[in-house]
């Protein structure tokens, strides 16, 4: 889909064609969708008025599934088929998953990413996450009664390439056009409008359901740079639930043996914890195999038995400041994110540590989704949104393995993206005709301490003496922080390339098949929908081409102009058809045939814009 229309920054081509763009916080415990409506970002509720969608998917026999609260309600009775906290498994192998023995799932070791066996078959974390994302997409479509132009999805700042790619795959599988992935702390900072504020350091304290993240952002020239991140990927509200549940079982002198019992106590503990944020005492109660559990608990008791958890978040915060070689006095503001920061003892501990009141006026559950929605609205090019340009950096260094298991860093962390860097390597043996390349991510010196992203081989190097070949390895990172690598022997021109996703993400074919499967049930609807989408796209494309020709037709020779006119005519003819594939083919041909023209126009546009600036400067 190549749209030729170049609009003024911030100005949509037509005010009636406002594009609906959404922000999604795909969380460990729960997920939300938000959008900018009437100039204000707000979270979108479901039919029952709830904005929070529990990140839970339950698979049932007969290819049925329940998502959200319905799934969570059965978590205790059907733990094996009810997947919660799937975010922990994204882009992760079986060995990466800490404490998996305690989890009620039937894990399947698969190359790259772990999978889970359910009553509906073996599911990958990408598919499970896609169910959650698709639910949010449908919610947004119902809210606006319109198609969604695109989405910004948030990921933790420390997510590596495999985890980001898995997230992007899940969004694509859910039928979303991913405008950008942005980091959660950055989204929270945007929600608070910090990018318009004073330059300096900001801390984002994010205590979610399953993870604790503390991030230090530096704002300079309107750019948020992630200075340091830390935390504990296995510490969150769930641990407060577990500590409370364990304590309650001890108090009552009973044991939860079955998976159903274990889950029931945890669910009851979570409810009790939430109550204790607003009242002083509550009753933890649930039915167990061995009988009824009912234990009274006060806020003070709860604070005492989770004090070590609060303390470990403060210890992690102190470490991040040390890593950034800075002190807490340099921190200009502290943003609170995550439902768990509602707990009064957390707010008190953070406020005391930083010596300032943390920002809590936005709903801590919603703040990340709100920031993502603001960014999505800007990316969709809607009117009034042109001022926000989010420039980003990569959070982790990218490099190659060299002799002796050492890492040669090609792109250092905090490089502004998109970016491209190249480095030359050579052969170390006489007559060597192949070279293995191992792409890694991380800050440590040894390959063993970094995350392996991909391996590929450059073959067909002409035999030469050692050191004579010149192999240029080029890394390119796009605006989402995703990497592709090419290697080329300069003398002979042999080349090999890889987009870093093979071991973790899904292939495009796999995604296409899953898409067909997930939408295949209502084929008639699908057909009508496809046809409508194709017609809209055809109309949009024809309009865009006409206006591009009117503005910059002088860039084309008569022959080039004739070819484009013929392609436009072909699209016009196809529009009377009911075959969406025929329309798509004509639109595709027009997009392809106008690519070079679009490139010329864009170069002209950019040159004019830059020259305009330079003249003003003089």
């Amino acid at each position: 889909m190549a749209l030729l229309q170049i609009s003024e920054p911030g100005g949509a081509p037509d005010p009636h064609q406002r594009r609906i763009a959404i922000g999604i916080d795909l969380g460990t415990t729960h997920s939300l969708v938000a959008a900018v409506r009437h100039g204000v970002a707000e979270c979108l509720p479901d039919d029952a008025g709830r904005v929070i969608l529990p990140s839970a998917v339950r698979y049932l026999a007969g290819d049925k599934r329940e998502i959200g609260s319905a799934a969570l309600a059965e978590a205790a009775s059907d733990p094996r088929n009810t997947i919660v906290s799937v975010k922990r498994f994204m882009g992760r192998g079986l060995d990466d998953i800490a404490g998996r023995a305690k989890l009620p799932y039937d894990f399947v070791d698969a190359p790259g990413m772990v999978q889970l066996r359910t009553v509906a078959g073996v599911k990958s974390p990408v598919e499970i996450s896609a169910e959650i994302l698709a639910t949010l997409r449908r919610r947004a479509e119902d809210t606006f009664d319109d198609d969604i132009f695109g989405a910004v999805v948030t990921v933790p700042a420390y997510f590596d390439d495999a985890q980001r790619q898995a997230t992007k795959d899940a969004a694509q599988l859910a039928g979303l056009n991913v405008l950008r992935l942005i980091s959660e702390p950055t989204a929270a900072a945007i929600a608070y409008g910090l990018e318009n504020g004073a330059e300096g350091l900001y801390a984002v304290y994010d205590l979610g359901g399953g993870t604790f993240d503390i991030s230090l952002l530096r704002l300079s020239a309107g750019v948020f740079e992630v200075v340091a991140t830390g935390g504990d990927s296995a510490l969150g509200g769930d641990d407060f639930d577990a500590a409370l549940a364990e304590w309650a079982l001890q108090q009552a002198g009973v044991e939860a043996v079955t998976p159903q019992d274990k889950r029931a106590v945890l669910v009851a503990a979570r409810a009790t914890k939430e109550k204790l944020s607003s009242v002083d005492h509550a009753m933890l109660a649930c039915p167990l195999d061995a009988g009824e559990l009912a234990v009274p608990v006060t806020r003070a008791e709860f604070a005492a038995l989770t004090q070590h958890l609060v303390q470990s978040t403060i210890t992690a915060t102190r470490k991040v400041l040390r890593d950034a070689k800075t002190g807490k006095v340099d921190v200009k503001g502290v943003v609170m994110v995550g439902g768990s920061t509602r707990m009064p003892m957390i707010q008190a501990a953070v406020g005391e540590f930083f010596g300032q009141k943390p920002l809590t006026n936005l709903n801590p559950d919603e703040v990340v989704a709100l920031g993502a929605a603001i960014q999505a609205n800007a990316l969709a090019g809607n009117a009034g949104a042109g001022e926000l340009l989010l420039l980003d950096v990569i959070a982790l260094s990218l490099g190659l393995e060299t002799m002796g298991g050492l890492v040669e860093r090609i792109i250092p962390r905090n490089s502004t993206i998109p970016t491209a860097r190249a480095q030359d390597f050579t052969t170390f043996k006489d007559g060597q005709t192949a070279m293995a390349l191992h792409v890694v991510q991380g800050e440590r010196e040894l390959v063993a301490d970094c995350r392996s992203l991909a391996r590929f081989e450059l073959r067909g190097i002409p035999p030469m003496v050692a050191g004579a070949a010149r192999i240029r390895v080029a890394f390119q990172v796009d605006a989402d922080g995703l990497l592709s690598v090419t290697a080329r022997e300069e003398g002979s021109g042999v080349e090999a390339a890889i987009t870093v996703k093979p071991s973790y993400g899904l292939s495009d074919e796999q995604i296409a098949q899953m898409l067909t499967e997930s939408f295949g049930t209502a084929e008639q609807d699908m057909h009508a929908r496809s046809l409508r989408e194709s017609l809209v796209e055809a109309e949009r494309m024809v309009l865009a081409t006409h206006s591009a020709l009117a503005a910059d037709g002088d860039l084309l020779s008569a022959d080039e102009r004739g070819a484009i006119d013929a392609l436009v005519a072909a699209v016009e003819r196809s529009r009377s058809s009911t075959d969406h594939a025929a329309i798509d083919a004509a639109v595709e041909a027009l997009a392809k045939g106008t690519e070079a023209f679009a490139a010329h126009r864009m170069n002209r546009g950019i040159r004019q814009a830059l020259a305009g600036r330079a003249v003003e400067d003089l």
Partner: protein
Amino acid sequence: MPALDIASTDFELFDTEPRFHQDRAALDARWRELQTEVHPDRFAAQGAAAQRIAVQWSVRVNEAYHRLKDPVRRAAYLCELNGASIDAQNNTAMPAEFLMQQMAWREALDEARTVDDVEALVQQVTDHRRAALQRLEATLDDERDYVAAAQQVRALMFVERFAQDIDHRLEALGQ
């Protein structure tokens, strides 16, 4: 001023004199201004062809910014623009005095046992680097002797490599 092009020099792109001395605040401001025009997010709604061109431009702007804001990379670039090749891989000849100092530093790092020992070395290297950059500025901007400057850049590259080794050592001591 000539029309900007993706093949313009870093200095042309950043609308600044091709000299070593640069105002960091002005570079930051111009970088932001350029990205405001070319960043792919500006064209997020406009399809694949526009994205590809925007990425090329944006990468080019980031490359220039990365080079201009770092004094050693900026100096190396100036030398190359003026026909004095750095060619650090093949040109490793250094004055004896410089090599002696490098050896002394390496020994000091090997023998350092505490964070304080290493910090003292950090201070020495930082002072040395500051003085070397001042000399480099005079060589480039006043004397315009690019061949001599290239030699100084090669020496500074050694110093930077050593500073990295110190960082790794500090990390190791910190754990």
